[in-house]
C-alpha cells in the first residue's frame, strides 16, 4: 500500500504546498489593496518609495532599453534581409519595444533591483523585531511598509516603461542610422507612422501590473522572512525569483487578453 501511495504523496505534498503559497500571496495582495484606500496614509513613506523605486531605477532601465533597441535593429535587419524586408526595421523595433521588450525587460530589471531590496529591508526589519515594534506602536506594518511600496511601484514602473520605450526606440534609431545606413528622417517617420496608440498603452498597462507584482513579492517575502541572516537571504532570493516568474506569466496572460482577437 505504501509503495502505491508514497509516489502520490510525493507529488501531492509540493502541489498542496504550492497551492497554499498561492493562497497566502492572494490573501496578502487583497489585504494590501484593502489598506490602500483606508486611512491612516503615510505620504512620506510613499514619496520615499517613489524615489527609490522610480527615480533610482531610471539608469538601469535606460541602459537595458538602449542596448535592447540596438540589438533588435541589428537582428531585424539581418533577418529581414532574407526576404528583402530590411525596410521594416523601424516599425518592428518600435512595436517590439513598446509592446513586449520594454515592459518585460524593464519589469525584470526592476524585479532584480527593487524586489530584492524591498525583501532584504523588510526581512531585516522582521528578524530584528522592528515589525513587532511597529505593531506595539499601534502601526499596521502592511499599511506602513507594504502599501507605500506597492502603490509607488504600481505608479512608477509604467513611467519607467514609457521612458524605456523611448530610449529603446532611440537605440534602434542610432544603430539604424549609423550602422545600417537608414536615413534619419525616414527612420523616425516610419516609427511614428506604424505605431498605434494601443501598442504603447498596452505596454504601459503591463508595466503597472509588473510594478505591482514586484513590490508585492518583495513585501510578502520580506514580512514572511525566516529567522536570522539566512532567513533574509532566502526571502530575498524568493522575492526575485517569484517576481520574475510572475512577471513572465502575467505578461503572457495580458498579451492574450490584449491582442488575441
Amino acid at each position, binding site marked *: 500500500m505504501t509503495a502505491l501511495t508514497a509516489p502520490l504523496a510525493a507529488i501531492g505534498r509540493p502541489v498542496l504546498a504550492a497551492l497554499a503559497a498561492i493562497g497566502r500571496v492572494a490573501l496578502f495582495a487583497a489585504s494590501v489593496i484593502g489598506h490602500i484606500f483606508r486611512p491612516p496614509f503615510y505620504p512620506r513613506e510613499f514619496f520615499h518609495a517613489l524615489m527609490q523605486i522610480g527615480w533610482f531605477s531610471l539608469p538601469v532601465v535606460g541602459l537595458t532599453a538602449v542596448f535592447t533597441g540596438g540589438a533588435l535593429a541589428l537582428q531585424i535587419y539581418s533577418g529581414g534581409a532574407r526576404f528583402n524586408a530590411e525596410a521594416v526595421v523601424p516599425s518592428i523595433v518600435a512595436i517590439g519595444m513598446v509592446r513586449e521588450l520594454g515592459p518585460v525587460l524593464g519589469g525584470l530589471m526592476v524585479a532584480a533591483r527593487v524586489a530584492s531590496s524591498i525583501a532584504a529591508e523588510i526581512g531585516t526589519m522582521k528578524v530584528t523585531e522592528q515589525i513587532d*515594534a511597529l505593531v506595539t*506602536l499601534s502601526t499596521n506594518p502592511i499599511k506602513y511598509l507594504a502599501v507605500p511600496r506597492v502603490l509607488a511601484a504600481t505608479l512608477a514602473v509604467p513611467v519607467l516603461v514609457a521612458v524605456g520605450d523611448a530610449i529603446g526606440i532611440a537605440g534602434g534609431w542610432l544603430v539604424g542610422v549609423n550602422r545600417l545606413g537608414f536615413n534619419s528622417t525616414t527612420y523616425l517617420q516610419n516609427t511614428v507612422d506604424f505605431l498605434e496608440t494601443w501598442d504603447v498603452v498596452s505596454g504601459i498597462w503591463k508595466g503597472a501590473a509588473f510594478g505591482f507584482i514586484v513590490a508585492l513579492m518583495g513585501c510578502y517575502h520580506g514580512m514572511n522572512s525566516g529567522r536570522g541572516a539566512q532567513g533574509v537571504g532566502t526571502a530575498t532570493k524568493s522575492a526575485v525569483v517569484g517576481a520574475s516568474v510572475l512577471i513572465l506569466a502575467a505578461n503572457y496572460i495580458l498579451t492574450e487578453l490584449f491582442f488575441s482577437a
Partner: protein
Amino acid sequence: MITLSGVTKTFGKNRVLRGVDLTIPSGQSMVIIGGSGTGKSVLLKCILGLVQHDTGTITLDGQDVTTADRDAFLARFGMLFQGGALFDSLRVWENVAFRLMRGPTKRPKAEARDIAIEKLRRVGLKPETADLFPAELSGGMQKRVGLARAIAASPEIIFFDEPTTGLDPIMAGVINDLIREIVTEMGATAMTITHDMSSVRAIADRVAMLHDGLIQWTGPIADLDTTTDPYVQQFIHGRATGPIAAVR
C-alpha cells in the same frame, strides 16, 4: 492587572511555555528571571499578541487579550525589545517620538521632538544623539533609545526585555533608577526581564522565576533570599550545579 492562566506555546517540537500561571498586579514592578532560552521574551510577546499562544487565557483588567480592541489595547503599552528594535531608516528622535507623531493623540513635530529629547535625557543620552541614525550608536546606546521610545507616550504598562544587558554598571544603575521611578512616580505597571541580580533588587516589587516552561517560584522581593526553592537558590547564587542543567 494582567493574569495568565495555563498559557502554553509550542514552536514545532519545542514546548517553550507549558502552562504559565502568573498575576501582575497594577502599579507594581514584576521581574521575571530565568535562564536564557526559557521563553521569557516569548511570554511578553504572548501578552502583547505578537505571538499567539496555543492554549490558556491571558487577561488585562479582566478582559481576554485576544478579543480586546487591538488599538486601544496596544495604546496602553510600551515595550522595550531585547535587541532594541529601532527603526534604522528613522533618526533617533523620530524613533522615540514615533507614537507621538501618529494616531489619535498626534502632536506637532516640534513638540514631539522636545518630548523625545527630554526622554533621551532621562535615559542618559545627550540631545546631540537625537539627530543621529540608530546605526551610528553603540549597542548600549541603542538599548537606551529603545527604552526612551517605550516610555515616550507615558504608557500605563511597560515591558522591559533585558533593559540593562550590554550597559556599563553606572548606566545600568541609571536605568534601574529610571524604571523604579516610572513605577513609583507615574504609577505604571512594569514587567521586566533580567539576568542581572542587582537589577532585580533595584527594580522588583515581585519576582517570578520561569523554568522548563513553568513559573517555578513567585513571591515578593523580600522573600527572594530566604526562599528554599532550589531553582531560585541556584539562579541567584549563579551555581553551575543544581536542578537547572548547565546544558540547555
